[in-house]
């Protein structure tokens, strides 16, 4: 409790307050820009947090993460083009509402449901993360190896539609983490004589390339596609009747979103889609869904914001990213010299509780900003592509160059921009690659340590019940869906 109060007290620091405010505004604005997701923004702004120090940097990135999901709903409702993938389900009913002149009511409900979902999940985060960390505190290398493999297996459900392609991308991420000197032997791997690769591939240019520059190529491919914006009208608080009608949807979706967010590698987009289906299933107005049902906006919005806090649970407690954006935040922690995992709760509790309290504040801030300035944010979302994307490139260049002041990093970012574009073209999502890259070192190190403990015998894992359980879950998650499909296909 004292650490939590300490974290809350940090919010009285004007600098932290400013950082959270700036992160929330940036999160809403970029979340509202079609094509720029929360992951792209955190990747793009990650280099600029290096000079901030760990607490403000995490508060900044956490605020962006919270606010970007809400920002995505603005364009989903107004132009039927989700600013963030997690707002895709919001467009199903939000846009029809906007078309019949109820954009303000839809945006109001989106802000309220997002804030409730977000705050609910941060409360769960505050309670669950230390408990999970306490469990994980007794973990040794074999358990961590099993946990990292479990986290990697979850990438099968991240990003693209094909689980095999997702796993391949995740494995390439792990492989990318092996570039540079092997820690045990000092042998250089895949450096190809390039000196700057000796310390490994830097996270920042890879992230900027995969998210920001690959998207620039995507946008170049879609030039000329036009969207029609619906009239916004007045943004207002939903009526009590609206809130009453949606309370079940918001409650159910907040719980669902938090749970889905906690599962490693599953993020806000999955949470929103599942919440939409479940909200419809439990609704009395099923026939209205797809035609402008306000519950169809409330459910996914509560869920995608609840997934944010949920995704932070394994990220902070175990060092296993709960989503693509948390993988980038995890990379940010590593860049700051902070090693994520259960020991953070004993070594740097103030850092964690500062993150929790700044996320709480960000959720309240975007409720106020969303209701008060949605018209302004909606206008910003209409920035034409010929201005927006060249500016994104210029910021990407600065972002890749600034940390080491090296043009080689800009080349890496451009190369990964091309790789990311071709990956997407062939159905490989870059998200699993990032998760693999972040987890790669942990997988290799813990495997080596485990095998040393077991005298190089793989059978040693059989004597570790927690590791065995995690391996069992991995197999279940990998093979379960296809086995189930087969069973259903053969009556």
């Amino acid at each position, binding site marked *: 409790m004292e650490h939590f109060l300490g974290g809350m007290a940090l919010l009285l620091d004007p600098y932290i307050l400013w950082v959270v405010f700036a992160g929330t505004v940036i999160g809403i604005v970029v979340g509202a820009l079609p094509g720029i997701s929360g992951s792209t923004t955190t990747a793009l702004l990650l280099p600029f947090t290096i000079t901030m120090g760990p607490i403000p940097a995490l508060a900044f990135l956490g605020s962006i993460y919270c606010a970007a999901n809400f920002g995505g709903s603005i364009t989903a409702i107004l132009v039927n083009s989700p600013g963030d993938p997690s707002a895709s389900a919001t467009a199903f009913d939000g846009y029809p509402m906007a078309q019949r002149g109820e954009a303000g009511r839809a945006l109001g409900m989106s802000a309220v449901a997002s804030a409730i979902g977000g705050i609910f999940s941060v409360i769960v985060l505050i309670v669950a993360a230390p408990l999970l960390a306490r469990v994980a505190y007794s973990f040794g290398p074999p358990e961590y190896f099993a946990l990292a493999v479990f986290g990697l297996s979850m990438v099968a459900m991240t990003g693209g539609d094909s689980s095999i392609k997702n796993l391949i991308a995740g494995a390439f991420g792990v492989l990318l983490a092996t570039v540079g000197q092997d820690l045990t032997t000092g042998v*250089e*791997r895949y450096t190809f004589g390039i000196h700057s690769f000796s310390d490994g591939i830097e996270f920042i240019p890879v992230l900027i390339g995969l998210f920001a520059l690959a998207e620039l190529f995507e946008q170049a*491919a879609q030039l000329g596609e036009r969207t029609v914006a619906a009239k916004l009208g007045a943004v207002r608080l939903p009526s009590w009747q609206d809130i009453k009608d949606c309370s079940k949807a918001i409650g159910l979706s907040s719980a669902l979103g938090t749970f889905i967010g906690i599962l490693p590698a599953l993020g806000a987009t999955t949470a929103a889609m599942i919440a939409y289906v479940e909200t419809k299933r439990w609704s009395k107005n099923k026939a209205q869904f797809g035609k402008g049902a306000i519950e169809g906006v409330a459910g996914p919005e509560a869920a995608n914001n609840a997934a944010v806090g949920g995704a932070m649970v394994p990220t902070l407690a175990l060092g296993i990213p709960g989503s693509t954006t948390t993988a980038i935040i995890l990379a940010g922690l590593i860049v700051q010299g902070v090693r994520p995992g259960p020991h953070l709760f004993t070594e740097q509790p103030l850092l964690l509780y500062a993150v929790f309290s700044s996320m709480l504040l960000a959720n309240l801030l975007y409720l106020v900003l969303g209701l008060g300035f949605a018209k302004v944010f909606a206008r910003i979302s209409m920035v034409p592509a010929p201005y927006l994307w060249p500016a994104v490139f210029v910021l990407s260049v600065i972002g890749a160059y600034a940390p080491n002041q090296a043009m080689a990093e800009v080349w890496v970012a451009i190369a990964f921009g091309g790789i990311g574009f071709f990956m997407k073209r062939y159905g*490989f999502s870059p998200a699993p690659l990032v998760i693999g890259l972040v987890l790669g070192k942990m997988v290799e190190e813990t495997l080596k340590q485990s095998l040393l403990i077991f005298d190089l015998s793989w059978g040693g894992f059989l004597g570790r019940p927690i590791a065995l359980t995690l391996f069992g879950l991995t197999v279940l998650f990998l093979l379960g869906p296809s086995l189930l499909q087969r069973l259903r296909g053969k009556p």
Partner: protein
Amino acid sequence: MTPTRAAAAAVVAIAVALFAATFWFEQMPEGITRGFGAELFPRMVLGAIAALAVLLAIMPASSPPLPRIPPMVWYSGASLLAFMALVPVIGMLPAMFVFLVGVGWMWGERRRLLLVVSSVGLTLAIWAVFVKGFGIQLPKGLFA
């Protein structure tokens, strides 16, 4: 060949090439590697990648032919490379200005004044924040 099979073939080819590259890793004595040489883990991962790619190729899946990549993607890629070539010659900030105007024009913006003014504004903002604010030294080019 379907795009999925083409992608699977490319993945196998990359995996084989990277597997072959592990044979050029420096060899260390057993006392240092303790049974886990630097090449072992990459080989395990590459084996998994190759197996998954084979699975991808043999799995039945609908894979319609991909549309052609629009020329604008190639032009935009070329602009990025042109920017990189310009940086050592005229410096990063002027190259950014040229890029902002050039790509904005290429992507269809015809309001010249607005394009130039916004590009100057963004370039100046970058100079103020990063050069003056953060003290980052940007490449200055041949004429500085």
